[in-house]
């Protein structure tokens, strides 16, 4: 049972140019490291331009996960992709700020819709030939 839980992976969904990662289980450190590797792997395979990480159901984010998320953003930006953290809960935000993890350089959005709009806008400004319909 324990092994099963440990082996369960967080699904990464590719939609158009974005990868959508919805974290719906409690994050433990190993899972976080695995997820990081998994996302980067997927990025290189699909050539996606942005990653949306939805943490709206996460009720607790410790310093490790916080660091993982901000590290994720820097790594992805080296790979020419933007990371947007979506739907952080107020309590989590307060905790992170109290911990001094202000995550500079990480983009955040209130919800998935805003996050996608943000990424699209960024891609548009980066590349005039960008067509959001992927055609």
């Amino acid at each position, binding site marked *: 049972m324990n092994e099963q839980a440990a082996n369960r992976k967080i699904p990464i969904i590719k939609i158009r140019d974005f990868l959508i990662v919805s974290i719906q289980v409690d994050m433990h450190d190993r899972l976080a490291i695995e997820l990081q590797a998994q996302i980067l792997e997927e990025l290189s395979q699909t050539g996606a331009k942005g990653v949306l990480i939805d943490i709206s159901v996460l009720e607790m984010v410790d310093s490790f996960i916080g660091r993982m998320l901000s590290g994720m953003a820097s790594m992805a930006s080296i790979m020419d992709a933007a990371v947007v*953290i*979506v*739907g*952080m*809960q*107020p309590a*989590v*935000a*307060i905790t*992170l*700020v*109290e911990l001094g993890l*202000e*995550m500079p350089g990480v983009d*955040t*959005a*209130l*919800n998935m819709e*805003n*996050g996608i*709009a943000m990424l699209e*806008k960024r891609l548009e400004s980066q590349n005039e030939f960008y067509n959001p319909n992927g055609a």
Partner: protein
Amino acid sequence: MTAAYAVKNLKQRVEKIENVLAAVAAGDKDARVNSQIEDDFSGVEFAIDLLIDDLTDELDQGEKTRKELEEKLATIQQQQQTIRQQQDDLLELSSPVTKVWDNVLILPVIGTLDSRRAQIMMENLLDKIVQTGCTYAILDITGVPTIDTQVANHLLKTVTAARLLGGECIISGISPAIAQTIVHLGIDLSAINTKATMQEAMKTAFLSNNHKSSELTHDEEESLREIK
């Protein structure tokens, strides 16, 4: 024989005194020896009665004081509860977060900020941002006379936390005194969007809104034109 004659029924009388004392000890304040006989022993009986009188008086007095004190305590407790409730109400009232436009929240802060109030304000604002899904929050501190390091720190924390949620905070209405304090304290507010007046802040928020969503309703266009 004369000594026996001077004190009549000594045994019964001592027994009576004993009984009376026992009754008083058990709580009967009306028990007295009340001897009708006048002789050498009646002085003792009389003295005991007097003592019992004094004692019961003291007891009554004590009882009365205790009751008064209890009443006072109850009043004070009630008053304290009222004060606490009013404090809570005040805290609740003191951070009204209102949605003034699509995507724009406003939080006018009035009065002196202490850490507790700043904390509650922060929680309220963040909750509201998530509830309404508004991206812009204007923190208007026109009504705040002075701030200290701790409160400035709280403001910074609020702005950072709002940014983590995906919101954006604009602080408006920083008075000259506060500006001086902030600079003297060495607090770096450069990372934060600050505007002189609430009007300016709202304009900024509206215009950014405008850039964000290309389609505006007719009403919005009208009002934006008015603002410009």
